[in-house]
């Protein structure tokens, strides 16, 4: 098999063309870096406390700000309608598909991870990179308070 385009979707290209078709001439400027920070694990995964971070909100009318909520029992659902996921191809009725709190609890019971953090965190997707960085610090403080060894981010 041969082809003339890459297999995986370029969302940068897609969203630029999509919003241009809607009459938005100035494309969104994505943040770009050539390297990333790195903090090594200090203990094996089987001893790590794992915290989840999502882009979903607690409710449709929740304020646009970072939040934390209890990991267990996991919420029945989260608000996702405002996010740009593929509404024509799938759904977000199953929390395990985008915020796997119960899966992590099961992995903790099986000894694959040490424990699930008592809270998960949410950070809304916004255009302002400056404000996102400020919100990230709010999230970091909550994760640090909970003794999280690994933050797993599952953006929709």
């Amino acid at each position: 098999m041969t082809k003339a385009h890459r297999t995986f979707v370029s969302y940068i290209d897609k969203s630029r063309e999509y919003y241009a078709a809607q009459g938005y001439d100035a494309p969104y400027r994505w943040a770009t870096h050539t390297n990333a920070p790195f903090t090594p694990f200090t203990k094996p995964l089987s001893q790590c406390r794992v915290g989840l971070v999502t882009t979903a909100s607690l409710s449709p009318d929740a304020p646009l700000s970072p939040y934390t909520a209890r990991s267990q029992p996991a919420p029945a659902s989260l608000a996702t309608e405002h996010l740009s996921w593929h509404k024509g191809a799938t759904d977000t009725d199953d929390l395990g598909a985008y915020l796997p709190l119960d899966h992590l609890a099961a992995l903790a019971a099986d000894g694959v991870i040490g424990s699930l953090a008592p809270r998960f965190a949410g950070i809304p997707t916004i255009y302002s990179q400056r404000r996102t960085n400020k919100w990230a610090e709010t999230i970091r403080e909550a994760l640090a308070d909970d003794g999280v060894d690994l933050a797993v981010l599952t953006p929709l």
Partner: protein
Amino acid sequence: MSLTARHLEAEGIPTLIIGSARDIVDEIAVPRFAFTDLPLGNPVGPSGDAEQQRRILTAALRFAEAAVLPQSSVVIPVEWTGPQDWRETYMSLDDTEALAAAGAERRANQAAKKT
């Protein structure tokens, strides 16, 4: 979310992103990235498929533990049994008139909110 991962990592908390927008995450550059080639909305596995979600999550966690360098990434094998044309139908440009009208309506709404 990639910016959040960079911030957490720079401040001493190891991070793992499990996500389906490969190009966005790659451009921003993150410490650890597990790519799942699925429609946006189900980064950890197809909705309703708990077994595959758990397999993907476990593989991603094991990858994260083994990573020793920043910008480490892995492509996690996935099985998608939903609509096979999902790559084409997301943000489709097929109906340009409807798109132009939607954009105009949105701008009008935003202008109305400001006044």
